[in-house]
């Protein structure tokens, strides 16, 4: 069982690089989340909105980013999760998910989290406060 408690400030979780974004990923997310805004799935609607192509739901990326913490839910849980959507995610983009310890106490660990695309641009940036059961 992996553990978070050994991590020190400045250390990171092992980063995860996702497969290139596909239309089917976004169709599945639309169905699972109930967010059917067509700029995420239909080319013509994205074009009408002035976009060069369909873009991923911000919440799809936020959802993916949280999976860095799923293996640690025996130790604690995500108490606070805050992000800003700082860039758009297009089809075929390759995102890398990162989490670095910013602060640590006996009760919780605060991480800076981000999703970065293949050009090094940060598309989601935020913080996770992971509450430890202790």
């Amino acid at each position: 069982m992996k553990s978070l408690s050994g991590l020190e400030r400045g250390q990171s979780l092992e980063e995860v690089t996702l497969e290139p974004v596909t239309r089917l990923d976004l169709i599945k997310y639309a169905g699972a989340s109930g967010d059917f805004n067509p700029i995420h799935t239909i080319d013509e609607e994205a074009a009408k909105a002035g976009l060069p192509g369909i873009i991923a739901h911000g919440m799809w990326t936020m959802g993916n980013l949280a999976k860095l913490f799923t293996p640690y839910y025996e130790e604690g849980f995500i108490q606070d999760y805050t992000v800003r959507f700082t860039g758009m995610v297009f089809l075929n983009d390759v995102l890398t998910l990162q989490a670095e310890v910013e602060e640590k106490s006996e009760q919780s660990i605060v991480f800076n989290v981000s999703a970065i695309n293949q050009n090094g641009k940060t598309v989601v940036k935020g913080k996770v406060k992971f509450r430890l059961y202790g």
Partner: protein
Amino acid sequence: MFESFIGKTSPKVKNVIERGSVKKFALAIGDPHPLYIDEEYGKKSRYGNNIAPPTFPRSLEYGEIEGMELPKKGLIHGEQTYHYTRPLLVGEEVYCYTKLHDYYEKEGRSGKMGFIVLDRCGDDRDGRQIFSSRAVLIITETVRKAMMA
């Protein structure tokens, strides 16, 4: 344009954290961890149950604030937060509501932009909060004008 709704809430809506919905959601975010989808694994976990991913509340229903209608298109999701007192359990009933926390306008590069700060919360059957969330949604000038017309 939403100023008069600030502080208003929707009536609570009962949601059930459905096993199938949680599985579909976990798969859609590429996180098919057994804690979310394997019943036996869930029983042996510290939760004694499967739980839902932290962003799962996106899929729940929160009801409507009477008279307030958000634009169907053209909203930009700027920020999102979640706060949990504990993870959501598969099978439990959650009573959800939404509240307009704030609305303000700012001059941006492409004209006046509106910022909708919308809270969405879920309580247990005794009224204790399980999660709260806050979204900042941005309305561009174009969409704002279309709505005023």
